[in-house]
């Protein structure tokens, strides 16, 4: 209907503030790109496939960091997904009503603990424990490429454990919300056909499947960009290895460690290019995740 002048002024003024958020996202992408031009121009695609990272000779290849980021995130999801989904199912479907709120709150508390505290705990408490476990591993397994190398405690496996703990709350809270919103009728239909409780839960999971994949990807987005805790426990050694015992490196960690040491512009631009890639990957992952969650919610709002 007709809009008054006040309404227009209000809309435009508040809209300008809202536009800041939009401009920030565009601005981050643009500035990262602008400040990595030197490296983009010089190395082109070779930057992503090169394995040598040598600031002294001005040779920059980021593959070991990309490997480290992807591999650690993959391992973390492997650990966190069953646990996070188990938590979501337990809280939304199985737990006594009285426990529901406190359990939800406690598991989400994991998300509130600062990354640096995870790192501190990882270094001083978890590393010795993991090292003992590594020593206990049977010799036959130690000969496979996944566990080769000396058991140091720090390394890829340790990073994956810390990361998985850190992403659990993100995945479980979204998955829980999705399960909560699955229409009761879905479950009733399953029970009416004589399903067991678990079979009815499986029907609910099937109904919210896309959204649950979205929840897992949300966790992935977190894992990819996680910095401090990983930097403190992964060993910071740029090598590409499938071994969980091997000290490796991630994109975020190399930025954290070397950014203030970057003496020349090329070095700086190379590091910023890594940041740019991290930015693009996380936007992509988050986009897909939001999209999945959104379509699922959309579907559940319509009466089934």
């Amino acid at each position, binding site marked *: 209907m007709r809009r*008054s002048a*006040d*309404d227009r002024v*209000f*809309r435009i003024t*508040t*809209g300008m*503030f*809202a*536009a800041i*958020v939009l401009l*920030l*996202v565009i*601005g*981050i992408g643009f*500035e*990262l790109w602008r*400040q990595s031009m030197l490296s983009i121009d010089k190395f082109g695609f070779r930057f992503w496939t090169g394995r040598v990272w040598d600031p002294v000779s001005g040779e920059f290849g980021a593959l070991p960091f990309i490997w480290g980021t992807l591999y650690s995130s993959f391992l973390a999801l492997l650990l966190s997904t069953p*646990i*996070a989904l*188990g*938590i979501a*199912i*337990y*809280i939304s*479907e199985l*737990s006594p009503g009285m426990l529901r709120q406190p359990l939800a709150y406690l*598991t989400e508390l994991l998300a*509130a*603990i*600062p*990354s*640096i*505290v*995870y*790192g*501190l*705990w990882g*270094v*001083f*408490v978890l590393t010795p424990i993991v090292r003992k476990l590594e020593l206990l591993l049977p010799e036959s397994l130690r000969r496979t490429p996944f566990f080769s190398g000396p058991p140091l405690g720090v390394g890829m496996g340790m990073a994956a454990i810390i990361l998985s*703990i850190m992403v*659990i709350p993100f995945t479980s809270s979204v998955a829980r919300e999705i399960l909560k919103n699955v229409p009761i009728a879905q479950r009733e239909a399953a029970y009416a056909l004589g399903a*067991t409780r*678990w*079979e009815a*839960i499986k029907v609910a999971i099937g109904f919210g499947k896309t959204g649950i994949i979205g929840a897992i990807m949300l966790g992935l987005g*977190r894992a990819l*960009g*996680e*910095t*401090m805790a990983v930097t403190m426990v992964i060993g910071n050694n740029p090598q590409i290895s499938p071994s969980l015992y091997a000290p490796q490196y991630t994109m975020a960690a190399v*930025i954290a460690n070397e*950014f203030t040491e970057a003496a020349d512009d090329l070095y700086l631009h190379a590091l*910023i290019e890594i*940041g740019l890639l991290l*930015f693009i990957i*996380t*936007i992509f992952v*988050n986009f897909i995740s939001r999209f999945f969650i959104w379509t699922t919610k959309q579907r559940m709002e319509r009466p089934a």
Partner: protein
Amino acid sequence: MSKAWRRKIISAIAEGFCAIAVLLALIPLAMILFYVVKQGFTSLNWAFFTQMPKPVGEAGGGMANAIVGTLILIAIAALLAVPIGCICGIHLAEYPTSKFSSIVRFAADVLNGVPSIVVGMFAYIIAVLPVKRFSAFAGGLALAVLMLPTVVRTTEELLRLVPAGLREGALALGATRTSAVFTVIVPAALPGILTGVLVALARVAGETAPLLFTAFGNRFWSISLRQPIASLTQQVYLYANSAYDDWHRQAWAGAFLLVMIILTLSIIARLSVRRLERMNRP
């Protein structure tokens, strides 16, 4: 064994696994809290709050400058992010279905997912590179960008909880949209918005990565916005990586302080949101 029996047993096993998953997540939580309290609380002393860090390798000293530094950093972040974020949230709540709103909402979600270290790089590029100096301002800016999406979305959500009747009541008395929003709707949601802001502040108070090359850290006392400044998180990082027992002890003390701040704020927030929900029920 009959088929029905097998199905029941599978169901029971699966349900058992879910319960174990909860325990698996609670164990690290309990362990972290236990160690932070055990190592941190016993390491707290008066000097920790009042003294400056000692030179490398010397025992004693405290984190006075880092505590003040963290406060200054989050104050800058709040000053930048709260007005922008709240007004942006108001816009989203007032025009929930417009195309522009859904783009902004999406941008806020994207921003929320950008790794904090990348945001730190951005702050470095726009606030450190041009003046060639690390500064408290650059650190505060990075934290502001990080808390902005939370402020935006909490404001929007809480404003939408305000009953539509209040808006109609104000408009029917001849309020313009602007005055209805600022004199009735926002005040009604204000307690909730404030706690949302507190939670966002608590979150960024725990950030380290984006400060590494913006605020940079400072061994000395500084409260200038244009100079590098110390922060609790960075000091914990520095001390954790050192080889000295006394510094490890102080790192735990710093972690304890951080966790206490964050837990307190999040519990306050939880209680007041519950109160708000009660109030808005008819």
